[in-house]
């Protein structure tokens, strides 16, 4: 007989309802990850107690850790479900434990609402203000080292791991969070983006801005894409200071 694996999943029926736990047992298969466990449960939504239930709701798309959708708390650690391989999880503990991310409102079960992260991208104007999509010739030349750093920042998939572990992101604060600061740095480093750097720095000053970061460095450790967040926070922090002084002089 094949091996059974056990998962305890925190469920929640709707936005305002109370969470509760359910335990499932499914057959072990080679190359299993948490997504395939949830798929197997969806195919047969029966708890270990034999109770017929509904499939667990969760968010996913790419299944290869590049879309950022499937973030959840797995065995106590926030990460992507698609790269969470069952055999490795079972080495950590006997029962796999799944909970939704802690810093975002739950929509249902493991499915959370991360729209605040996309709103933050609007706030810091995370784009290049090109004049037109019509043909204006080549883009500016970019130094290879700058291109490389920008590539690292640009790998951010808005997954929210860094937000979930940041002590400054909590119910009582408006802190914009590390991801948006990283993206502001990404655009401020681009030759054209730099022309509107002041607007991005402005957006990061004041309440909820960059000074709310306590420099705990949890974010950079939690980021699955190794986005250089603390570098971006340091750089952007210095830039905002310079910007503030300049603004003071210009006034």
């Amino acid at each position, binding site marked *: 007989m094949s091996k059974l694996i056990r998962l305890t999943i925190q469920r929640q029926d709707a936005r305002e309802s109370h969470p509760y736990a359910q335990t499932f047992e499914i057959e072990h298969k080679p190359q299993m990850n948490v997504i395939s466990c949830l798929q197997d449960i969806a195919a047969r939504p029966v708890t270990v107690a034999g109770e017929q239930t509904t499939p667990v709701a969760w968010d996913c798309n*790419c299944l290869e850790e590049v879309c950022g959708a499937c973030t959840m708390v797995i065995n106590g650690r926030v990460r992507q479900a698609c790269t969470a391989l069952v055999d490795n999880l079972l080495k950590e503990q006997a029962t796999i434990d799944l909970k939704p991310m802690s810093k975002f409102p739950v*929509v249902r079960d493991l499915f959370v609402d991360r729209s605040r992260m996309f709103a933050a991208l609007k706030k810091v104007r995370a784009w290049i203000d*090109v004049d037109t999509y019509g043909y204006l010739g080549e883009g500016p030349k970019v130094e290879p080292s700058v291109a490389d750093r920008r590539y690292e920042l*640009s790998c951010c998939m808005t997954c929210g791991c860094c937000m979930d572990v940041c002590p400054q992101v909590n119910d009582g604060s408006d802190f914009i969070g590390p991801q948006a600061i990283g993206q502001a740095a990404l655009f401020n480093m681009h030759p054209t*983006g730099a022309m509107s750097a002041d607007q991005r720095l402005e957006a990061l000053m004041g309440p909820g801005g960059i000074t709310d970061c306590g420099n705990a460095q949890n974010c950079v450790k939690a980021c699955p894409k190794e986005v250089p967040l603390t570098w971006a926070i340091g750089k952007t922090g210095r830039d905002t200071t310079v910007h503030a002084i300049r603004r003071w002089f210009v006034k």
Partner: protein
Amino acid sequence: MAKQRVVIVGGGLAGLSAAMKLAEDEVSVDLISMVPVKRSHSVCAQGGINCCNKFTRSQGDTEWNHFDDTAYGGEFLNNQPPIKEMCDWAPKIIDLADRLGVPFNRSPEGNLAVRRFGGTLYKRTIYAGASTGQQLLYALDEQVRRWETEGRITTYEFWEFLGPIIDDQGVCRGCVAQDMFSLEIRAFPADAVILATGGCGLIFGKSTMSMVCTGGASARAYQAGANYANGEFVQVHPTAIPGADKLRLISEAARGEAGRVWVPRKPGDTRHPNQIPEPERLYFLEEKYPTYKNLVPRDIATREIFAMCRAGYSVDPATYAVYLDLTERATGIKREVLEHKLGAILEIYEKFVGTDPLDEPMKIFPAVHYSMGGLWVDFEADPKTGGLRLDSPRNQQTSIPGLYAIGEADYQYHGANRLGANSLLSCIFAGLMIGPGIRSWLKTVPGGGAAAAASSLFEAAVSKHKDATHQLVNRAGTENPYLIHRELGALMTRNCTVVRVNADLKTTLGELDVLHERWRRSALSDKGQWTNQNLSFTRALGDMLIVAKVIASGALDRDECRGAHYKPEFEIPAPTATEPDELKRQATEWCARYFEQNRKWLKTTLARHTASGPQLSYEPVDVSLLPPRPRTYGVRGADIIEKIWKQQYAGKPMASAGEASPRAALAAN
């Protein structure tokens, strides 16, 4: 007059580029997507995007070469004016992407770096590490966000397209969609609807595609009367890694950066690959294709891998696998260099398989990857340029006026086989190019557009979808949709991928009917009214079954080998004689048969939906710019074929029987 609106469904590269272009031109856009657009499947594209720019030009490349490679790669099944236009635009598209801040890799001088890809001898692929699709998508997503803040684009994320709204004149006046959280169903009146909803890999169960790639939206348009074209052309990528939930792509860039495919010369050799010395390795692609080597097009690489494995050379007894070797020993390239250029795919392999591809060869498998077929769309050629009339409202229009399709959802650009790094290009190209055509359509939209349509049209459409949903939710039955999906995937993978046999295709069609019948008896395990993923999945499964029949019947009827569609029963045997006169005779016969095959089958398959299944017809392909020629990729022994073809067939017109086509009908209007 009320303000005109355009609805775009799908927020991958195609949908986003259309949205930003229309927004710039002051058209109001509603963008509907099942996922936050930043999480669309385009993020999975790794290797790069093709264009002939100043660098590749200095190596002797031209836009025409890119066009030729694209037509030859697609075995001439792609209409030529659209691909000509696309290749001519490619360098400008890259320049725009560069201006938008895409972090492309750079040369030491700060120019865009290039790599080589499959099906070409030129280095013309621009890339951003090994996550080019992700980086391009983000740049477009950022622009769309910019227009959102200006109020020109309204995004409806986590909304699912249920179907177009078509009036009694047969014109599309908007669509119906459902909020995936509240399950609210509402109409989106619009003067044009653009489907940019991607491919249909989930029909094959596990593929390299993302979870939203069910083909559901195209299937819904098809069932509403839009024609589906070339459904049988499905790309199987030669290099992926298996998983319980998905097959994960290892980009062609791995071979573009000198990765080599091999198996041990001794079948079943159980030694660790690093222990197998050079003379005991069989680099079978390099031996058979001395010109293109490991960079033959995907359909050919996949078939060769399959053939080796069938002959007992698989390196994994449980499945069909070969080695893809990126170690310094095989490539002569230093670890740091490859880490820099291929980081993202090396990481994927390491995360899922657990070994470092720069230490030991990867074990790779073929996997369903891309739908060349899709919704039939029109174009209007410009005889002056050989390309397209860019302001024509016919470009990218489906057979339903006012309903458009772009990106992987359409069939237009890749013929019988897509070349690597042409998909990102075709998506962005069609998305940008459709702008002027849509504006022409808006100026002349018949009957005053959506604003003039009776409200009863929209109410009726909404209530039809509400009823269907209600029925689905409350359906009783003992069948399980998830298990039916697994059976569908296994069936389609077995019979409709690399090797196709008529007897099996016939059985497949029968089994699809049985599965469809069982689907009608499947019941939801969640009847709730909040974030019901079970509902969305089960509905899409019904649509997948419909498109599966289009794929299987197209494959059954097409008795030839072309690109990804390979039927050994109809293969023209390659010349084998060693005696020169006999070899010449065989090659002459080969050419005669190939010419005859083109005359008969160089046609687009059109499927029309009927209650009893797809009804097929064929229309000629526009080959006005480049005459078709044998697609040999310089395989050993093919020189004689090429020589005879040049002597006897080059320039000979390929009179094809012109059946009444929707294109001709639309043009006549």
